[in-house]
């Protein structure tokens, strides 16, 4: 696709059309929205009771503060949930468009492939972080988890820096699905490995030492640890900036690779004429 002639601002303005389309579509599935929230809170409820049998002394401190397992795991659930839902939607959105027969209708409009991909997930890029924040607030009230109030803003900034990573990984997976027509299994495995070794549910210190070494360069682990230090330990902006200095390049590179992979996959589909096939 020739994107050189496209006016970037005019292209970005099209995102609001995608957002409106998806808000209207999602509002027509009200039961699914309720089911999503129910599932999220039932998960938190399970971990709340699990936390009753976990010795807080075994939970690593965050920002120098000791905490309970429910506070520890809530941040993990929030970030891994964002990753899982974000990835699933990114991967499935193009597949869905293929199945529904709307992908070719989009592709015959003068819209770049990047904008079609971004537009297809713009709703989720807004909704999923919003869902994460609401989840953190409600759990902190409902399960008596005390997060440091001054830590919310730095934690949100760290979360925002993590989103391009999710988008990048999702774009790579989306490119794989477009090319191979399958790929959700591989994606599920990769998500599991990344999340399991991130310390989302268990302290990384429980794993062999090399897992801890990998966690240092695992953007999910970096995000979760950074957010815990803010929300539990109130580590402050200096600490947040250190996390961001590590996270932003990782996210940026992943996003660029993702968009490149998606573009190449689209180009291949155009060459083979198989875009509408699934």
């Amino acid at each position: 696709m020739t994107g050189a002639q496209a006016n970037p601002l005019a292209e970005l303005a099209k995102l609001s059309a995608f957002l409106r389309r998806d808000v209207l579509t999602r509002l027509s599935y009200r039961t699914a929205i309720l089911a999503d929230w129910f599932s999220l809170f039932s998960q938190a409820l399970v971990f709340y009771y699990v936390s009753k049998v976990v010795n807080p002394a075994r939970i690593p401190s965050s920002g120098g503060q000791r905490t309970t397992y429910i506070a520890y795991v809530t941040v993990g659930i929030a970030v891994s949930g964002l990753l899982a839902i974000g990835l699933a939607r990114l991967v499935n959105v193009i597949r869905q468009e293929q199945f529904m027969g709307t992908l070719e209708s989009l592709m015959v409009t003068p819209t770049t492939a990047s904008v079609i991909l971004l537009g297809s997930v713009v709703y989720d890029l807004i909704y999923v972080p919003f869902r994460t924040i609401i989840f953190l607030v409600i759990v902190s009230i409902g399960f008596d988890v005390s997060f440091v109030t001054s830590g919310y803003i730095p934690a949100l900034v760290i979360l925002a820096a993590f989103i391009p990573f999710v988008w990048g990984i999702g774009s790579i997976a989306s490119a794989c699905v477009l090319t191979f027509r399958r790929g959700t299994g591989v994606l599920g495995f990769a998500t599991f490995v990344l999340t399991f070794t991130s310390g989302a549910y268990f302290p990384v210190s429980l794993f062999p030492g090399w897992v801890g070494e990998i966690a240092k360069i695992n953007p999910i682990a970096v995000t979760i640890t950074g957010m815990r230090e803010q929300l539990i330990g109130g580590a402050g902006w200096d600490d947040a900036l250190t996390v961001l200095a590590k996270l932003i390049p990782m996210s940026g590179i992943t996003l660029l690779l993702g968009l490149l992979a998606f573009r190449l996959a689209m180009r291949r589909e155009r060459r083979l004429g198989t875009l509408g096939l699934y």
Partner: protein
Amino acid sequence: MLSGVDLRVGAGRISALLGPNGAGKTTFLRIVTGLLLPESGSVHVAGIDVAADPMAARRHIGVVPSGDRTFYMRISGIENLAFFGRLYGLSRREALARAERRLTDVGLSDAGGQRAGLYSHGMQKRLSMARALLMNPELLVVDEATDGLDPEGARRIQDLVRGIADTGTAVIWTTQRLDEIRGFADAVTVLDRGRTTFAGTVEDLMLQSTSRAYFVRLRGAGDAATDAELDRANGALGSQGTLSRAGGDREHLRLDLTEGAVLGEALAAVSGAGLTVLDVAQQRSELEQSFLRLTTPRT
């Protein structure tokens, strides 16, 4: 795989692309719309090379795809149109205004607020037409639009397209239905296994027919034509053709015209021989015969 396909469509002209399944019609349309890159050759729309600049070319092309489910079924018809309008760079206000106008043009103004998923097959085709016309395209590409429609629905779509062509839009109309191109298309290209086997007018296509057989129902002095009356009619026909019995039925006969003979003159000759022509039916349409001759695999 397409090879040696050359098609030019002028403003206000309807060019039919005819061919059996697998002939390459949809592949051709994908190349025209920039969804598929040709290995060689080029397509120009409004002077723009589609492969080199598909984004610019697409601003001049409206597409009516062959599939039914090319809309977002959970949102209304007008929201669908407004969404696609915005992908062409229109503001929401302008996109809505155009969507309303086009819905009226295709007779869907009352159904604009309904979810697209509730539309019938014919309504979805018309919605598709409305979407294709949002930007007043210079080229309208219509892929088997009447497939699955009842005769009234098909006629309605054809009337719409004819009206659009009359405003100066060039139309490429693909179909497998021969009956719909007579009196509708200005030019025909027949594709078979990726190659052009015919390019010309509908009338030229009909001339490709080699056999011109008709069933005629005649009455002589009595109820059915006698052998003597048949001989007299054949004498009157001369080199124009032959009249013969079609099976055991004495009332129905077969009239085979020779090349260049005119049906009306032949029937006049039969009448002149004292027989009354009650009915005439083409054994197989000239278009159908031409189509089969141009596309049937040769051994």
